């Protein structure tokens, strides 16, 4: 059981608001974990400081204790924030950079420049990304394919970049079924429910 849950069980009421030392004794914890656990409960609105150095549960805290609701770390709401500017580069970021560099290329050419990195199936990933971009009007298929070497191969499709909006990678949202372009700060292409599958 986590320190926070132990503390939730030991917090007053019943009894008068307690100090950190009293709470630590009651929950069987050291002082530092008790301080952190009180902070967690307060951040979640389950505990409050009644006067300097004395704490008790709120009504929500009492309800959480009665229902045995676990208190976990992790997101408290939907992910609606923008991607951090220094977020790690993904395979799709490198694909987009490669597409901007080459202007027109086949999937193998894009993968060579972008580097597969740790992508499990770079060719499939690239294919899906390009299909999304095609639907939004960012790329178009060139009529001539790159010759393949396998027997019976029809060759590799070649793609032409039509809309180079900037270095930010256009991102597909599975929930909204649209393509968000961070360079334009706008949605670029939306799919209806019937055309959902690539």
């Amino acid at each position, binding site marked *: 059981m986590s320190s926070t849950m132990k503390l939730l069980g030991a917090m007053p009421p019943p009894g008068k608001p307690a100090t950190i030392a009293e709470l630590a004794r009651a929950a069987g914890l050291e002082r530092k974990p008790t301080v952190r656990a009180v902070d967690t409960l307060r951040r979640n609105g389950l505990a409050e400081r009644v006067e300097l150095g004395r704490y008790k549960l709120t009504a929500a805290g009492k309800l959480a204790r009665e229902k045995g609701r676990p208190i976990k770390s992790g997101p408290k709401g939907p992910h609606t924030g923008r991607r951090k500017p220094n977020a790690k580069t993904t395979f799709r970021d490198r694909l987009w950079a*490669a597409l901007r560099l080459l202007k027109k290329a086949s999937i193998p050419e894009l993968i*060579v420049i972008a*580097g597969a990195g740790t992508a499990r199936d770079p060719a499939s990933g690239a294919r899906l990304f390009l299909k999304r971009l095609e639907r939004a009007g960012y790329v178009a298929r060139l009529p001539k394919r790159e010759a393949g070497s*396998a027997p019976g191969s029809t060759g590799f499709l070649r793609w032409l970049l039509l809309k180079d909006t900037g*270095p930010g990678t256009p991102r597909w949202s599975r929930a909204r079924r649209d393509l968000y372009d961070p360079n334009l700060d706008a949605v670029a292409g939306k799919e209806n429910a019937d055309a959902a599958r690539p």
Partner: protein
Amino acid sequence: MKHNFVQTANIERFLAASGALDNRGAPEACILLVDGVPGLGKSHAGKWWAAQKGAVLIRVKAAATPHWVLNDLVKELGEQAPAYSCENLFAQAVGSLAKSPRPIVVDEVEAALHDMRTIETLRDLSDLLEVPLIFIGREFVYGRLQRYKQFTTRIGARTTFAPATLEDATKCFADLCECPVEPAVVAAVHKMSEGHIREIVKAIKNVERIGLRNKGKKVALADIAGKSLCAEVHKAAGHKAA
């Protein structure tokens, strides 16, 4: 073909030179010059490096002017509304690069030599922001730049691309070809290609086609006899069976 970028001797020298630029003593000596005859993979190496490093790459057009180059640079940096005047374009480029410094790769730099203001504009940017500037161009670029001391003192590193060696060709086959080949085939392809990496890659594709048709058997000299592996017709393989 396997989707790998082959690190030939030229690429290793290029990476060593770009590393040397990072450790340069004088902050303004931030130009890396990559030169060589056409067909040795300089532009391809520049694109790969730019993708790996998050650098911005611009290709100088034959009729380039400072305005054109700045306009291309600002668009590559992601500005949605490039400014009208040269002065404002320069300010936009400085603003964007100051916020997120990235190296600038300039391909086909020989096209800018007819109007030194174009190259001087790039030098002004690099002097101000101390971002690495990678010039990729033909074999005569260094000779022409030597007339201008303000450039030669700023070239922190230089690498010349040479024709691919037999070791490079062997590495290309190992990294790209999906079927085994005999060393004699590699030697034959290297001779046919005359060290042009583009021709070696084309030949690998053709050799691979032959190998896959033979159910992955090792490709021997006899299998490629009489076949044109490289692009030009006059380079048709005229090897007799061993």
